[in-house]
Structures are given as C-alpha cells and as structure tokens.
C-alpha cells in the first residue's frame, strides 16, 4: 500500500489500530467518492472568493506545527490561510479524487516524486520557478538532495515542509557486544556478521516482509551502492534496459546471497513492521539489525524507551567493494512537500506562506515534535532537539549525501506500487528468480 506505507513509515505503530479501523471506514467513503467525486474535502468551498487559501495536509500529530505556522501567517496576511486535514491512511486516494474539482486546495502536502508526477502531467500544478526567482531563499535555504525530490522535468514543484526520513541500519548494541561484533562497514563484514549471529542462535536481521516496503529498502540501498543513483534514474526515465544491466544482476545476486545465508530467518514474510513485529525482534534481542527509516527511533522510543536510550545503535548502510555508488549516498523519504495548484487565486499569498518553511520558528517547532527539517538553518538549532546526537547524525548524513534516493515506491507513479512490492517480496522469498524480477520491473509503468 503506497500511501499507507508512507504513512505508517512516518507515524509508526502508535496509530496502527486506529489506522486499520480508519482504512475500512475511509474505504467506504472512497467508494462513494469514486462515483460522485465529492468526498473528503473538509470545507473547501470556493477557496478564493472569500480571500482565503486552503492548505491541505495529512492529518496526524504533526499538525500542531502546521497549525502554528498557519496562525503565524494569518497574523500578518490579509489573505487568510485555512488548514484542512485528511486523517487516516488514504490521503493519496482522497487527494486524487478532489484535486481536479472545485474542492481542490490551494496548497497541499505530498511526498514529492511519483506522488505529484501524475498531477504535473495533468497540468494541475504551478511550477515554483517564479516564486524562487522573486525569493531565491525558497530554494537555496534547503538541502539540495532533498529539494530535488520535487523537481520534475527541471522545474521545482514543491517546498519541503516536514522532516527528513533517511533509511539507516539500526542495531541492538547488546546483541552485537555479546557476539563480539560492531556495526558492519562493508558488505563482506555484514555477511560475516550474519554467520556469527546465526551461530549464536539469533535472527541476524529483522525484516517486516509482510509490509513489503521494508524489503524494498534492501533493494534501494544495494542498487545505489553497486551502481550509483544513475541506474534507477535511467529505469525511471523509461529505459527498461537498466534493469537487465550487469550491475542490476550483481545487486540481485548479492541480495540472494544474503537471503540464502539466512540473514532474515525463514519467516520474515509473516512479520510486519506496522504491527510492531519487527521492531520488537530488535528490541527484545531476538535480532541484531534492522534496516528501517529514521522513524524507527520514535517507534522504539514509544514501545521500548529503555532499550532506545541504552541499546539502540544506528549506522549508515555498509559499503560495497567494487560498487560505483558513493558510500555516502542515502535512500529513504527525503521530506514531505507543499505543492501549489495552478488554479490558486492568491499566488502572492501562497508565496508568502511558503517562505515560512525555512523560518527559525518552523525549524524549532519541527525539532520540538521530533521531526528533522532540511533547511540550512536547521544546524544551529540541533542542540535544542529532543535527541541531539541522533538528529545531528541524521542531519550530517543527509547534508553530506551526494545523492538522496527517494524510495522507489514513492519515485514511481502510484500505478506501479503494487506490482513493484509484489515483485520485491517474491524475489526475496524465492518465488521469482532474477530474470523474472527484472521482467516484472521492466513492466512497471513509469509515467
């Protein structure tokens, strides 16, 4: 599930029961919306005539900051901003049903990349080039590797508006110490660690295969380490031969080697991250590593505070000898973005609103709720964050990264997500060989 994956990624297991309930109820709503195209907008009546702009965001605990920023904006602006939220996991689905209707917002939350590409193609979004020309800080105050996620066909379509979520290799320090190992710096070391840990009776790596997207993270990092970001960019650009290249075959071979070595145990497809299964494996010391987005920290902190404080370690993904990718590259969710509808009646007010996304107030408020903003002024406030060491590690990682690869399932358009997830899962559990996987990836729609 695309949007629920991204959601569960950012909001983790705290909301999982609620989420599941919401999935079903929103589905009913969405079914109706599919026919009548009139569901889900919370009060979007003719946004413009009354001198307001509507800001649509994904509804969750992060809304406190969005509310605060809107209030700040309304203090000085004649055109008032109204914050609308869509709660629940089906944000993308509902957005899709209202974006081309009179209920459409002026500004909306998204994940960049493939989540807005169909809207850009349909001519619904406003390129932000003129805003940036008038105020260069709208671009220069953000980390480039993040900002580029919402650049489509050379034009900027989004401004980062929450926190970055790079994928890190988390570990249980105690399990590693008991086995006499340290976080692996190289792939070969990781393979050796897997053997050591297996001999100790541990599952070397926890994997929530049932969710499918955690499995995808292994592909994303290995492809980047082996071939650099170019291979995926080529494939996404519409050249399917990239998937059949020697580098692609090499990455798949290495993954296979890892699975066959028993790195993930044998029942990983019955385990999920979203219901707390794989984080518990790590926290309870049954597994030594988990490759997960930076929200793993918040998930573990909520479920196992003592473990998080004393034993949760993290490191960058190991390097691959002979690989052409930069060892400093990261993958994950670069950030969330605000994009602007072409139809907005108040572009000047929107431009003013977007400027707040690199303000000191914004950065401090985001750090206060545990998000890590990607503005250049973030650095000076890192000491005020709830977990300075962790946030500094992440910030430097993202800042130094020559390339920040957006998660494949976010980079491809939504139409590709299901088939991609299935292929990834089936390659991992051995139902697909490399040739079948390559064929499946080549069959994905890229636009």
């Amino acid at each position, binding site marked *: 599930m695309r949007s629920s994956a991204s959601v569960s990624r950012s909001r983790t297991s705290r909301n999982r029961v609620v989420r*599941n309930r919401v999935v079903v109820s929103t589905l009913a709503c969405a079914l109706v919306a*599919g026919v009548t195209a009139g569901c889900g907008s919370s009060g979007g009546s003719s946004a413009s005539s009354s001198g307001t702009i509507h800001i649509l965001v994904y509804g969750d605990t992060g809304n406190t900051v969005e509310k605060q920023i809107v209030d700040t904006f309304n203090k000085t602006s004649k055109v008032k901003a109204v914050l609308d939220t869509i709660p629940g996991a089906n944000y993308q689905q509902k957005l899709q049903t209202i974006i081309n209707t009179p209920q459409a917002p002026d500004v909306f939350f998204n994940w960049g990349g493939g989540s807005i590409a169909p809207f850009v193609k349909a001519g619904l979004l406003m390129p932000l080039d003129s805003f940036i020309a008038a105020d260069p800080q709208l671009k220069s105050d953000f980390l480039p590797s993040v900002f580029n996620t919402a650049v489509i066909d050379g034009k900027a379509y989004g401004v980062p508006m929450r926190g970055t979520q790079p994928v890190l290799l988390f570990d249980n320090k105690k399990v590693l110490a008991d086995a006499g190992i340290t976080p692996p710096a190289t792939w070969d070391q990781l393979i050796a660690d897997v053997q050591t840990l297996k001999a100790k009776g541990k599952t070397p790596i926890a994997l929530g295969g049932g969710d*499918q997207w955690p499995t995808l993270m292994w592909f994303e990092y290995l492809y980047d380490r082996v071939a650099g970001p170019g291979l995926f960019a080529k494939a996404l650009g519409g050249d399917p031969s990239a998937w059949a290249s020697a580098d692609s075959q090499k990455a798949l071979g290495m993954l296979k080697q890892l699975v066959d070595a028993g790195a993930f145990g044998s029942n990983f497809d019955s385990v999920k991250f979203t219901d707390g299964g794989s984080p518990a494996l790590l926290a309870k010391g049954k597994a030594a590593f988990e490759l997960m987005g930076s929200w793993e920290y918040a998930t573990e902190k909520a479920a196992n505070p003592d473990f998080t404080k004393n034993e949760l370690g993290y490191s960058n993904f190991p390097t691959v000898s002979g690989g052409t990718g930069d060892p400093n590259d990261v993958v994950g969710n670069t950030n969330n973005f605000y994009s602007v509808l072409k139809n907005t009646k108040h572009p000047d007010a929107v431009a003013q609103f977007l400027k707040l996304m690199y303000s000191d107030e914004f950065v401090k408020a985001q750090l206060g709720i545990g998000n890590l903003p990607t503005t250049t002024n973030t650095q000076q406030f890192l000491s005020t964050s709830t977990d300075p060491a962790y946030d500094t590690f992440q910030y430097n990682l993202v800042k130094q990264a020559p390339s920040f690869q957006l998660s494949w399932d976010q980079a491809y358009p939504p139409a590709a997500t299901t088939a991609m997830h299935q292929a990834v899962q089936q390659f991992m559990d051995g139902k697909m060989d490399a040739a079948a996987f390559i064929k499946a990836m080549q069959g994905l729609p890229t636009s």
Partner: protein
Amino acid sequence: MTSLTATLAAAVERRRAVRSGVGATRPGLAWAVPATLFFTLFAIVPLVLVAVLSFTGWNGIGSPQWTGLANWTALWHDPVMLKSLWLSALLTTLGVVVQTPISILLGVWAAGHQRNRAVLLAIYFVPLLLSATAVSVLWRALLDPNFGIPSEAGWLFGDGNLLGTQSGSIGVLAFVGAWQWTPLHTLIYQGGARAVPQVLYQAAAIDGAGTVRQFFHITLPQLRNTIITSMVLMVVGGLTTFDTVLILTQGGPGTDTTISAYYMYQQGFLSFDFGGASAIALVLVVIATLVSLVMVRLTGYDKMNSTAEGL
C-alpha cells in the same frame, strides 16, 4: 428473484383479502417509492456508471478517456485475474466446508436444554460481536511468528511462517473466517433445530432409533431449508470477503491470496486504474448473480417446500 415471487404471492394474497372485504386499505405503489429510489440511486446508477467506466481509462484526475475494449482484453489476458477467481472460489468453498458441519453440530446441540448451555453459548457468540477488522487485527497479533502462538507451539507451526506461504495464508483466512462466522450459522441452525416437531423424535425413539440415527434421519432432513439459507449466506459472504484479506495478508505473499474483491480494490484505489477496476467489479457482479441463480435453482430455494408436510 425470490423477493419477486414473494411480492407476487403477497399481491395475490392482498387481492384475495380485498375481495373478501378484509383489509380494505391496500398499500399503493407509493409505498415502494422510497425503497425503489434508494435502490436506484445507490445500486442501479453506480452499476451503470461502473459498466461505462469499464470501457474507459481513468486515474481519478481529469475526465475518463474512452478506450473501448482495452480494459477487457487486458483482463482476459491477466493471469492474476484468473488466479483471483480461483482463490475466491477456493476460499468460499473452504468456508462452506469448514463452517457447515461445525455450525450444524453446535446449533443442534444448542437447541437442546442441557445444563450450562446458555453460558457456553454466550461465550461462543462473542466473535460475532466483534467487527471483522478487529478480529483480523487480533489474529494478526496472535499469529505473529516470533511473539504469538506459533512461537510457543513450534511442534505444530514449524518456523511460524503462516502468512509467508500460500497454503498457510489461505489456511489462516479460512480459519479466521470460520472463527468469526460460525456463531452466526450456529444461531441459524439452533433456530432451525428448535422448529423440528418433537413428535418425530418421540416416534423414532419408540421405534428404537438412537441419537445418531435420529440426527441423520430426522434432524438433518428437517434442516434442509436451514442448510440452504445458511449456505447461501456463506457463499455470498465468501465472494465478498475483503476486510480479512486487507488486514491479514494484503493479498500476499505476492499475489497468493489476491481474491477478486481485493484485486478490484488494488487496481482501483492503490493503482488508480478505475477503468480496469470497474471491469473486475462487473465480472464479480456477473459471477455472483450467476452463482445465486444456480444455487436457488439447484436447491429449490425458490419453491421453499415445507419440511413439515404431512405432520
């Protein structure tokens, strides 16, 4: 169809009643207007719209593009669609095969007057009070391979990879479905068994028939219409199963539990291919209609002959 026969029969009754002077205030056509409007608006109109959509390409943005038969030819060559139909049929059959014997036995037992029966029954009915979503979330947690039941019962579950294999996940879906729905059918059978005239048992007892013989020669034949009712409900429920799949397996591993209803959801609301999803929906409508027609014909449900004739 059955409702039609029922309406006709009712109409005949009413005409007789009018003729004989009883109940002179016969309800006019106006009485049917609210229901008809409701049904037209929420069943017929969407159905027609879906039929139209199935000939278009539409991702929810902009207006649908006419693509002729493209969705239908794609569906015809789609291995996942064929597989999903088989899976739907398999899950439905499993549901009937597993639930029917259990609920008949439980229902017949519950129709008696044993001690503690009411207390035990109250416990049996608990699953019925929970929403399918809650039930699925509950079992998902209970079946966790590392922290749930499988981790404590390795001799039975092996490595606990229940939801990582096709047979395992189908088994889980059938089991959870049975756990949730058996109480409902037990209730139906309890009512049916209570309605069996006691004289039959008394006569059989005099003739020397034991409990087992009474069950097979009196209870089961007398429950014929109840069995049909219960099976129709099971088949309809099986074909429209969705929530358990959504939460327990999400159609996985791979496409191994992608039943037709879930496949439709996937195409429509995850991949935003509303045209293709509409085509799947229509296939489901046609199949469900055919299945109910065949069942009604084969079982004589439309005639509903009484099992109490000659008593």
